[in-house]
């Protein structure tokens, strides 16, 4: 997957590029409107992460350029301004998703993957991790080709893990992914453990290996090692 990050804040951009470059993901960065336009005109990207507010122009104009030059490119707008106008204008002009700064990196990563899958309509519509296969359209989970019954939360949890495979996910980012911002008032995210336990149990019963590793004091990680 080829990503272009258009973000003028160097520190944030650097962290994001570093975080997103993982496995088959290639992430490039443009720091200004001009640089972004150059790159967009010269190369093709699967997903563009677009900051609306750039020092030398509006990200919304870039959005139009992308839609014109490469309509199959997915656009995820990231903005510090949680202004409704931006969100609506962004989505109206063809952005696929919107995230407000600051955001959890795993959340962004999951959104990118989901967007990538939606955009790749023509390709395979499944998500794989070892012997586990997921069909997002139907929420079907199979282990060794045999279906596994999961609750909605367990399903979302599994997809979140697979989309962030190899990364440490804190209990908080898991909780926020599953329940949205509703969990921000909770003092402890230990309840995440219960869901993970159930998921592990169901996967193990279906004959899958135990890939969810507990990282002490921190959270969990999906890994095949």
């Amino acid at each position, binding site marked *: 997957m080829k990503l272009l990050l258009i973000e003028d804040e160097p520190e944030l951009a650097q962290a994001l590029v570093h975080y997103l470059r993982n496995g088959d993901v290639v992430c490039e960065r443009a720091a200004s409107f001009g640089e972004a336009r150059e790159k967009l005109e010269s190369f093709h990207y699967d997903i563009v992460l677009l900051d609306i507010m750039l020092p030398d122009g509006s990200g919304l104009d870039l959005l139009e350029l992308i839609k014109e030059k490469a309509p199959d490119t997915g656009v995820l707008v990231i903005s510090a301004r949680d202004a409704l106008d931006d969100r609506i204008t962004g989505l109206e002009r063809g952005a696929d998703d919107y995230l407000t700064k600051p955001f*959890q990196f795993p959340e962004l990563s999951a959104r990118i993957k989901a967007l990538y899958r939606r955009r790749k309509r023509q390709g395979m519509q499944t998500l794989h991790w070892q012997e586990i296969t997921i069909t997002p359209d139907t929420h079907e989970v199979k282990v060794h080709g045999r279906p596994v019954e999961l609750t909605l939360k367990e399903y979302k949890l599994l997809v979140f893990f697979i989309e962030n495979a190899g990364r440490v996910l804190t209990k908080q980012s898991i909780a926020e992914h599953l329940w949205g911002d509703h969990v921000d008032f909770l003092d402890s995210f230990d309840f995440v453990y219960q869901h993970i336990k159930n998921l592990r149990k169901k996967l193990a019963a279906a004959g899958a290996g135990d890939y969810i590793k507990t990282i002490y004091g921190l959270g969990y990680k999906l890994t095949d090692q």
Partner: protein
Amino acid sequence: MSLLTKFTFIYLAIISVVLGVAGLIIYNQFQELVVRETDYTLYHDLQIVKESIRQGKPIEALNNERVHITPLPNHGRTEEIRAYSDTLIVHYFTKKLEPFRKVTALSPIGDQLYRIEITEIFIEEEDMKRAVADMLRKLFFALSGAILLFSFVFSRQLLKPFRLILEQMERFTVGTNAPLELPRTNTREFRQLKAFVRQMADRARREYRALKEFVEHTSHEMQTPVAIAQGKMELLLQDPELKPRQAELVASAKNALARLSRLGKGLALLTKIEHGEYTLSEQVDVAAALHRLLPDFEELAQMKNIEFLADIEDDCKTVRGNATLLEILLTNLLKNAIQHNDEGGRIEVRLRQCRLLIRNTGKAPDHPPEVLFQRFAKGNSSQSNLGLGLAIARKICDASGYHIRYRYEAPWHEVEVVFAPPAPET
């Protein structure tokens, strides 16, 4: 008690005192006058009696109920002595003891000395008092009438600018820019008051605006650095070299940052509602929004062993408002009900005829209910509470025209929201 009533009472009290003192003075003056006049009459009568004696009238003929003449031997007295005195005498007519004025004179007439006593009845004291009292009463009524008339007709008119200024001040809010409509007046005090009120209002608005801008900028500007810090920590977490103890520290620092970021977003949301950035004329479906949100909160409640009861009637389907704001409102209220609940407590959510009642068990509030809706008014709660939730809920209700009310009746905390049904189409 109103200023006017107070004034009236004070005036009446002053009048009573003044009239009382005036009564005493009048009575005394009156009495003096009476004595002087009586004495003069007595003196006059004495001259007549003396003249009669001088003319040689027999003394027996001159003596009567009022006049007593006694001839005395004269030992060379040539000057007359007169003395006036008060005395009580049985009245010759009424046969009652009455106050009389008496003159006693030793008068040398010719060679003879006469002791002449003449009495004259006083004007009765009771009559005098009654006359004075009667006079004062009439005066009192006349003055009171005048004052009451003054306070209810003229003072009302005089104080009208003051009342209008008060009304304007009551309606004043720092958040809006509606100009103060202060009444025209030529009373100096009211003009000063007006100038003062206007100055205060301007200053309050200026300072409020500055403060608001500051909060807006801060909440906006802090998002990028927080995002950077969060990102770096996320990277740090992915470092396989990280020891568990270090990872724990990073994770808790990350949580604190997340809280800071939510605070910024909450403040930004408040200002956005204030700026009217949300369209409030959408048709929203309260019941559907609740049905969508409740499962998540039921799950979250279960984690705290809270019993969750929902009774949603499907009748509040077209309410004027904004879908996003409605969801934020419901989320905040439900969150609140879980957050301020006790382990093993209870939550009841009921929607009936566009009245949403959310009640939950929990500790008695530390703050009076009015304060709960203000920013950062934290109840006795977990430390992760931002104290913005209810302020946002209140702001959303105010902006959308819903009524929100909080009540505590042990052990229930009750929040009721009355959604305004859509205005009939015209």
